[in-house]
């Protein structure tokens, strides 16, 4: 592969924009979303829902807005990420709508108000899309974020402490991770995870040489130096703090996992994984020995049907649902997903397994795999260390979150409370995930954009836009 002048290209090849391919995929993604909504209507009520035009139209407006924003603000961005996210979000809306219809059916005849979520979720998706576009338009160069390494770190820690504050912090289902802001509640942890990735990346890109080169060799592994253990111990304590004070197994695992992975990626030293893994096992065993709710979770994991009487029916119900769904599923409207508690949020994969079967679940897991792969690919082609680490950290968020949630729902690992990205009901999570995708697209736009040709004295305006003034933290 050579440039027209006969010299080898800078990286051997030049990325194309691929916006046409993105549009093509977006159209199929819309078919997944709107088709799912129609199929839910047909399956439950026997007719295509009356508001399909309004609903479908709104989805089209949102997706076209995203596409236009990407075309204008990030023309070289990855073509696959946005369609995958649009498809997952559309599928999630359809499944939540299906569970809503069952709830409405259940309270028919009584004067109880049904618990419905689909409309709220559509509102949250709209906010998410608005922030997605806002992020792409406002943030023209991700390297700017490196200036705010410690500011974002501090903001993340403040956000994490917020739910523990007396008035605004509230307890939901045992986990103290909510903040009550009058009409809406939010989970600050979802925002904190994005900020933490930026802070880790900014810290590691500056300190990775010290973390990577110093240390001694012991039993075939390079162990890090004692005084470099500071940040990893601090992160370990923060994760344990979340676990102990907020009773939130999932976030604790997520934050610690992100940090450890990014540390490993930045230093290329498996020694950190050994040390971090040992600390994690020690912490987990310690907490297990005295925290009652963790013991309950482990009990429900080991004996999903044995714990029926003690109240932990979720995992068992979800496994029954998936078994009934089988290979092809019952079809929308033909299952009983409402039997699983929280089937609209934590257990949405159980509902999908029941009504779309293993075939549907595999498609969804593959889509998550594609998101992670595109994120890591962005990290590979990105040319600056900070961008690499941010892209990698954001991809790892999805990887850990999906593994932890789907692993919990399918009884592979103990159940922890994390949301299924883009699928499950939850405003903070949905909005934060849309922003994450915007950040990854921004980095991939920078990474895939052809390198400006600087061989002439007077560069044109288009070429000078690449220049960033000294990015010093």
């Amino acid at each position, binding site marked *: *592969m050579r*440039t*027209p002048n006969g*010299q080898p*290209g*800078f990286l*051997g*090849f*030049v*990325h*194309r*924009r*691929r916006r046409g*391919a993105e549009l*093509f*995929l977006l159209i*199929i*993604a819309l*078919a*997944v979303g709107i*088709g799912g909504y129609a*199929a839910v209507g*047909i*399956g439950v009520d026997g007719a295509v829902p009356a508001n399909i035009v309004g609903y479908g139209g709104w989805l089209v407006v949102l997706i076209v807005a995203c596409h236009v924003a990407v075309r204008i603000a990030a023309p070289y961005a990855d*073509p*696959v990420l946005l*369609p995958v996210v649009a498809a997952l979000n559309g599928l999630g809306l359809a499944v939540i709508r299906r569970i809503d219809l069952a709830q409405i059916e259940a309270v028919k005849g009584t004067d109880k108000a049904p618990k419905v979520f689909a409309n709220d979720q559509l509102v949250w998706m709209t906010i998410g899309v608005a922030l997605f576009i806002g992020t792409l338009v406002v943030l023209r160069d991700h*390297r700017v974020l490196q200036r705010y390494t410690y500011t974002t770190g501090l903001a993340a820690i403040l956000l994490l402490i917020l739910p523990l504050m007396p008035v605004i912090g509230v307890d939901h289902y045992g986990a103290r991770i909510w903040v009550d802001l009058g009409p809406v509640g939010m989970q600050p942890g979802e925002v904190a995870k994005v900020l933490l990735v930026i802070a880790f990346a900014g810290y590691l890109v500056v300190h990775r*040489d010290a973390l*990577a*080169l110093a240390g001694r060799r012991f039993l075939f592994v390079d162990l890090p130096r004692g005084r470099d253990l500071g940040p990893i111990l601090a992160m370990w304590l923060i994760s344990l703090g979340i676990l102990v004070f907020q009773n939130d197994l999932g976030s604790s695992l997520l934050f610690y996992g992100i940090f450890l992975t990014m540390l490993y990626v930045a230093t290329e030293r498996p020694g950190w994984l050994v040390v971090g893994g040992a600390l994690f096992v020690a912490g987990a065993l310690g907490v297990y020995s005295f925290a009652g709710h963790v013991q309950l979770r482990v009990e429900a994991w080991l004996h999903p049907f044995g714990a029926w009487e003690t109240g932990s029916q979720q995992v068992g119900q979800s496994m029954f649902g998936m078994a009934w769904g089988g290979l*092809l599923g*019952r*079809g*929308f*409207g*033909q299952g009983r997903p409402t039997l699983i508690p929280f089937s609209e949020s934590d257990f949405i994969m159980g509902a999908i397994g029941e009504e*779309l079967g293993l*075939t*549907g679940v595999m*498609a969804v897991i593959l*889509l998550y795999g*594609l998101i992670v792969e*595109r994120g890591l690919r962005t990290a590979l082609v990105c*040319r*600056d260390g900070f961008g690499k680490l941010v892209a990698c950290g954001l991809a790892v968020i999805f990887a850990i979150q999906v593994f932890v949630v789907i692993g919990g729902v399918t009884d592979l690992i103990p159940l922890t409370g994390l949301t299924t990205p883009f699928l499950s009901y939850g405003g903070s999570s949905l909005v934060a995930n849309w922003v994450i995708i915007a950040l990854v697209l921004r980095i991939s736009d920078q990474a895939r954009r*052809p*390198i*400006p*040709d*600087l*061989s*002439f004295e007077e560069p*044109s305006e*288009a*070429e000078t836009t690449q*220049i960033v*003034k*000294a*990015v010093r933290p």
Partner: protein
Amino acid sequence: MSELTLFMIKIAYLAVLWIFVLSAISVIRTDMFGARLSSGQQAPKAAKSKAKAPAKAAPKRRGAPTHVAVVEGGNEGERADLDQAPILIGRGPDAAIRLDDDYVSTRHARIAASGDQWFVEDLGSTNGTYVGASRISQPTAITVGTRVRIGKTILELRK
């Protein structure tokens, strides 16, 4: 709604889901290596600048460089041929020019070609790469004799 219709809808929906997954994968496949640059088809951005390139670029060339040499610092005299571009410079074992300099990062900088032009690019090093007196933050064009400072070491392109 008959059983059969519901079954057909279910299969159709699963088919749409999988068509989406497979088309996404096929887009990734065609995207794997980006565009091959042939004479007829160029990347849009490159095409714009290349259009006015030949006229100006030709008189500017004063013989192409053949190697990078360390001209100052602990490893003075070390060199690497430009045929093996991109050339990695740093303290790590995989660097083409390995520097024993405490102010150099494991993977410090890279020298590579784009068109006729050679570029030096900082790879996120701790102490930075300097061309002349200024620290570079993006790939910077260098010519024969441009002094590139990395830590306490100075390199330049040689004919």
